[in-house]
């Protein structure tokens, strides 16, 4: 294994990226092994591909590469064939022989496995021409689907560790901090604290040892940005951390990852071992005399550990409960020592900033928010997946151009941004730009990057109740406004959702929400009422319908809806009766079925069983 130094890194990069080594295979089949694709059996596809290639003696000509998340999860399992960049989707192992025969041997794309644009029905073969990818700008995710995350050489061939080499050979720590400040990079974990300022603080205190922590404790339901970065490009995160270590004069870093992310932990372990083997981590990095090492710490799952002081307590083996600041963790963090904690995506942005300069990064985005942001786009939208867009992109562009709009002729109702700390924004705010400050103004929050699109089948009271239930569960219990207040809010919401609410309840929710925001100590409590406050602000009429008319307009809240069989459409087959788990349906041959509303538990089993759409 070569020991890399500042002098020979470039030479090594040229050697491994020369056509002789990297392109010795005619084709590279990039099979996505992100969590989404794996859950649709992408590993079986790979297995079959490897078997078939071997059986046909093609293993030399065609290389199979397992990549991190490609991003277009809705179309998984995904495989991209390089060098031509053909995008194949929804693959099954049975498709493989045809694909080899046609594409790899005869050079013809397999039409039926290509992506179809849902509105024009046009087949698109090149990945870069698919609208989902066209509007994205990849920096934090620049290596996704392009490299094998378990092979450090592929990362180095794409300028991995070039930023570190630049830092160690030609920049002082102050210059590094200056560059990061110039870039305008703000923390991607949610709060958006300027990264350069944090590093400057961390450097200022001269109590040693100091620590660098990478926060990979992604806890939002519906968010998987950090995991995807760790799975697709772990070296970018390691490089960002080492650069931070150099800037603040620290020699030890920790990556805190949720134990629920076994693949991310596995790939990080490999990445750390390989980086150590090359002399990019550990003692005397790149022969510069600078020492820095990184260890992984598996977290045990607690939403509140996204808060930095809570995370540090948890690293020390204690309950993850936030403490009063000051002192800030840059002064007294882990074990009371100066500590800089940044999010996974923040660190992943650092190498590009160093390589291309802070001014380059600052040229993207808006006045107060620079660069790009990664989002997990889910909900009722065609193109569910992981996206990266420049700050300042409008929500409309994300939902309709990248997301492809709302399926099943549904109508856009709201977009939820920022998870349990965020808000539901209505159609009238679709032209809001994603930017820390404009989202704040709209009563939302950037959060870590979950974006959930909702159509007219989503009830806003139910959504608010869902997030409030989550926050009640995850409140650490340290301060009363959050611990008790959120529980009271949940009770009121339940009252409204079951048709027992009063108009005063809306006012009470608003008052409570504001008090909790003002008097809570940490970020969880300060933002937990946001889902309720934003839905009242933008969808008050739905609350009113629940209270005054005892009606759930989206037909979600079980106590306010009744199902009935339309006797004209009923074909008297009796399938609904069989499906009903509580015997609420009476049916005899040659008579339409009847639902007893007293017994019915609104489980919708009969609706799914009915082949004629006769129940609603």
């Amino acid at each position: 294994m070569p020991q890399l130094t500042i002098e020979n890194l470039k030479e090594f990069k040229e050697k491994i990226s020369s056509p002789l080594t990297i392109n010795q295979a005619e084709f590279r089949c990039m099979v996505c092994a992100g969590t989404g694709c794996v859950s649709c059996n992408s590993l079986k596809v790979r297995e079959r591909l490897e078997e078939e290639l071997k059986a046909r003696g093609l293993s030399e000509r065609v290389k199979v590469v397992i990549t991190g998340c490609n991003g277009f999860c809705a179309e998984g399992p995904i495989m991209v064939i390089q060098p031509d960049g053909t995008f194949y989707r929804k693959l099954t192992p049975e498709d493989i022989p045809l694909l080899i025969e046609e594409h790899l041997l005869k050079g013809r794309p397999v039409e039926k496995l290509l992506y179809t644009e849902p509105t024009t029905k046009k087949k698109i073969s090149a990945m870069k021409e698919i609208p989902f990818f066209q509007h994205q700008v990849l920096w934090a995710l620049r290596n996704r689907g392009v490299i094998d995350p378990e092979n450090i050489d592929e990362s180095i061939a794409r300028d991995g560790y070039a930023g570190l080499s630049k830092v160690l050979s030609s920049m002082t720590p102050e210059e590094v901090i200056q560059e990061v400040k110039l870039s305008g990079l703000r923390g991607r974990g949610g709060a958006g604290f300027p990264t350069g300022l944090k590093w400057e603080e961390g450097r200022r205190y001269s109590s040693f040892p100091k620590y660098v922590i990478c926060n990979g404790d992604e806890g939002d339901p519906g968010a998987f940005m950090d995991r995807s970065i760790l799975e697709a490009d772990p070296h970018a995160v390691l490089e960002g951390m080492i650069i931070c270590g150099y800037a603040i004069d620290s020699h030890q870093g920790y990556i805190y990852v949720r134990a629920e992310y076994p693949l991310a932990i596995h790939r990080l372990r490999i990445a750390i071992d390989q980086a150590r083997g090359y002399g990019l981590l550990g003692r005397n990095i790149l022969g510069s005399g600078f020492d820095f090492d990184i260890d992984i710490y598996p977290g045990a799952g607690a939403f509140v550990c996204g808060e930095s002081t809570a995370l540090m307590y948890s690293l020390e083996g204690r309950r993850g409960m936030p403490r009063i600041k000051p002192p800030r963790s840059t002064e007294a963090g882990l074990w009371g020592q100066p500590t800089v904690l940044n999010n996974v995506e923040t660190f992943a942005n650092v190498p590009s900033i160093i390589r291309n300069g802070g001014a380059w990064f600052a040229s993207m985005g808006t006045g107060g928010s620079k660069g790009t942001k990664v989002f997990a786009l889910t909900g009722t939208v065609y193109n569910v997946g992981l996206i990266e867009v420049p700050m300042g992109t409008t929500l409309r562009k994300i939902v309709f151009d990248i997301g492809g709009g709302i399926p099943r002729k549904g109508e856009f109702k709201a977009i939820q941004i920022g998870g349990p700390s965020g808000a539901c924004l209505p159609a009238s705010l679709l032209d809001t730009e994603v930017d820390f400050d404009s989202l704040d103004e709209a009563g939302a929050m950037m959060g870590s990057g979950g974006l959930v699109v909702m159509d007219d089948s989503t009830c806003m009271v139910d959504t608010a109740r869902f997030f409030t239930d989550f926050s009640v569960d995850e409140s650490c219990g340290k301060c009363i406004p959050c611990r008790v207040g959120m529980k009271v809010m949940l009770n009121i919401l339940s009252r409204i959702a079951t048709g027992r609410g009063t108009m005063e309840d809306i006012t009470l929710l608003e008052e409570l929400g504001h008090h909790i925001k003002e008097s809570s100590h940490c970020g969880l409590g300060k933002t937990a009422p946001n889902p309720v406050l934003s839905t009242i602000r933008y969808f008050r009429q739905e609350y009113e319908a629940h209270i005054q008319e005892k009606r759930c307009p989206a037909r979600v809240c079980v106590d306010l809806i009744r199902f009935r069989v339309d006797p004209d459409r009923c074909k008297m087959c009796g399938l609904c009766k069989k499906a009903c788990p509580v015997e609420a349906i009476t049916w005899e041959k040659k008579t339409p079925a009847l639902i007893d509303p007293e017994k019915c538990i609104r489980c919708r089993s009969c609706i799914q069983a009915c082949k004629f759409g006769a129940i609603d």
Partner: protein
Amino acid sequence: MTEKEEQLSHILERHRGERNGLIPILLEIQREFGYLPKEAMPRVAESLGIKPVEVWGVATFFNQFRLTPLGRNHIKVCMGTACHLAGGRLVLEALERELNIKVGETSPDGHFSLERVACIGCCMLAPVAVIKDKIYPKMSSFKVEEALIPYRQESKAED
């Protein structure tokens, strides 16, 4: 000493005195036993030189830790935002009915246990349930009974 006890001593020995090792130790014990046995707690405390209440405090704080054994067929229902919108709650309720246990419980015969989890990261398949390690995409209350058939047959064969 039984094999399990030996394993426990082994885990504790490896981390003796590492105060910050508490969470990794508990994770390792759980990996070994499938849950955190009550008897293990004072021993963890003793080996780290801390009070048992601190161990309990951590064990009950984090979502990962379980204080009861899981069923042989452990079922997780995703309750992330996308799954919730797509009707994850209906799936969970259908499973509760079918298995005759509440979420968080294990059936008396030890065959099934049911848990709700926040986002497993395959939102395009929502709503999702995971039985053992197999992911069941686009679930509905209607499909629950069918999905359970192979596991029920297996359990029957074991009994």
